[in-house]
């Protein structure tokens, strides 16, 4: 008995030594990786605080030796640039309604798939799962034509409709999975009390599904906010969001690094705030598909 204890004691001591060196190395390595991962964003942020002249002649890292070159001029100019402020507003006008509608429509359908019985339910669910992976490219040409015929091509509305349609499969699937975890007894109790499906949906499912809905909303918001391809095709200069407005500056990279860097950072601010404030929900949305 005592032998065993001694052997065990030795093992732990050896492991401790190993663990100490191992941990030091791992810490060192991960600090290095973290710095490496931060350099791109930090570089962009510093670039956005330098004048065009400085950016054309020296790299952003020179601020560490000459901090005097930092200025907020680019942001002042950006905020008086109506093309950029207009597109910022357009981005909000696209992302907010899209998010609200995807959540509402997705929640309704998610409830039906989770708790209602109707013929063909499983087949319909399989269709939704298939649509999860459909590339948006298959809809670009027909929808450009359809929206043209409806007279809404080039408007904010056309982008919203497109994003809703392609956001729904994920929304339905995600919310169905979450709603199914609501205890069946709660629904039974409500039903015995004579509640209709609508009342159950509003008074039981929605309140209990709050975290799931938050996850979906944040995910959908970031997705729509960051989209470029759909907006590139379906908007014009009056309705374009930030991503499209900024990419149009790319043609002369270098000469307009001031607009590009500050514009790109402006487009990142809202997603970053949302991300840091609600990252728990965002991660949950990612995990929802794979793990409970």
């Amino acid at each position: 008995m005592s032998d065993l204890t001694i052997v065990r004691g030795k093992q732990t001591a050896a492991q401790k030594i190993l663990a100490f060196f191992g941990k030091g190395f791992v810490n060192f390595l991960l600090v290095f990786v973290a710095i490496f991962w931060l350099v791109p964003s930090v570089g962009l942020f510093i670039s956005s605080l330098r004048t065009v002249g400085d950016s054309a002649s020296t790299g952003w890292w020179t601020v560490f030796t000459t901090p005097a070159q930092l200025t907020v001029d680019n942001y002042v100019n950006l905020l008086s640039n109506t093309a950029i402020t207009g597109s910022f507003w357009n981005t909000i006008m696209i992302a907010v309604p899209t998010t609200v509608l995807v959540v509402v429509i997705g929640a309704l359908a998610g409830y039906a798939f989770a708790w209602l019985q109707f013929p063909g339910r499983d087949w319909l669910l399989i269709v939704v799962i298939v649509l999860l992976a459909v590339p948006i490219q298959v809809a670009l040409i027909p929808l450009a034509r359809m929206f043209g015929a409806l007279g809404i091509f080039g408007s904010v509305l056309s982008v919203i409709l497109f994003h809703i349609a392609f956001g729904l499969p994920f929304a339905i699937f995600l919310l169905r999975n979450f709603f199914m975890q609501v205890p069946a007894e709660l629904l039974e109790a409500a039903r015995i009390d004579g509640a209709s499906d609508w009342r159950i949906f509003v008074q039981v499912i929605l309140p209990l599904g709050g975290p799931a809905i938050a996850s979906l909303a944040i995910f959908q918001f970031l997705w729509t906010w960051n989209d470029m391809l759909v907006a590139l095709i379906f908007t014009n200069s009056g309705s374009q969001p930030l991503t499209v407005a900024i990419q149009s500056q790319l043609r002369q990279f270098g000469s307009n690094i001031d607009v590009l860097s500050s514009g790109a950072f402006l487009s990142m601010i809202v997603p970053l705030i949302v991300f840091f404030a609600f990252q728990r929900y965002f991660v949950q949305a990612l995990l929802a598909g794979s793990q409970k």
Partner: protein
Amino acid sequence: MTQLVAPVANSPAGGDKRRPPHGSSRRRMFMIALGFLAPALVFLGALVLYPIVYTVVRSFFSAGGGEFVGWDNYVTMFTNDSTFTAIRNNVLWVLVAPAACTILGLIFAVLLEKIKWATAFKLIIFMPMAISMLAAGVIFRGMFQENPNLGVVNAALVTVNSAFGQDAAYPGAAGRDGLGLVQDRGVIASESTVESGSEQNFPLVGIRVDSVPAAAAQAEPAVNARAGQLVGTVWLDVVRGGGGTSGQIDDGKTGLPGILVDAVAADGTIAASATTDAAGRYVIDGLAEGAYRVALPAANFDEGYQGVSWLSSTFITGVIILSYIWIWAGFSMVMISSGLSAIDRSLQEAARMDGANEWNVFTRITAPLLSPVLIVVFVTLIINVLKIFDLVYVIPPGSAKPAANVIAVEMWTVSFGGGNNQGLGSALAILLLILVLPSMIINIRRFREERQQ
């Protein structure tokens, strides 16, 4: 929206068991379900399903849509240079990016468990997932600029290179005017030929003081040439602080060491060469009788190592894939890390007690238990990579765009970006759809298996 995660159904919960449908209530329930589903069905039917059918049909018609062309668009896709490059690049993307992201994510997730600041590390690596690919594209395009004064990557490379390599380069050098020197395509040479056994000096100007090496000493006149020799001095014909006579080796003028000097024979071949010493002197020995031109080859005056042309056709796809990894490694890390936390630790502990080392614990126990998560991550990334658009649209400058092309960008270019061929565009869209079909089938299989449990 693209699929973000490959779906796994939750355990089949209550829904199935309740309210056995019978009689008249069946119809009512159907109507209720329809009420809840109607908005979604309208959107999915009109804006997703109908367009798929339309695009399939459209892909068999000509550019303008007026004429049925059969499989022509699909043949064009694989024979046209630019579409074929796109398909080939997509293959490269699928082979490299998902595996790289998954492996990095796995390494991060495993190492994370050993540090105290895991949450901060996760946030840093995961943060790029929140920003747009456009912003990421702007960032990477800036980082990989060719000019080492502007692009951080080349700046780092040049710094490392000049710390280890000896650069004896004198960029910007020129011969002093009116002293018998000519300059052609970077070569500085004597204007006329020189007989062997004589002297040829090179007073140079235009050299930055910081490119003169510390070893350089006061310039000295060459020792008298013997037969079969050409001698001379190469010096910086400037006295710091002013003064001195042009073309004269005055006090305060520095010799330029390490410069290669060639004796060029009448037929243009290099008869012999020498290198200048610290005082700038050279002695070319072993020359036959005759006239030579003495030349300082262009290599002496090169800019030296200036980094890599990252945004050129050769490297552009690699740079874009790097930017993709910067964004998506965080996704794979978060997914795998949450998979790790769900694993039963007692198995690993038991193996360690039995004397298994960390590597065996990982390969024999952790990795197999993680494999479902790894597959989900991998499949998700493949689907995502197939449709890659923004980064490839944003990062390459115009000259490198053809080399970086991928299917989604080609589809945009062909149908909206000036190609004006919506027949070919539709065929490319269908190609993308076909490429994601296997993962759709995997998704359905997984869903059915989960249901049957």
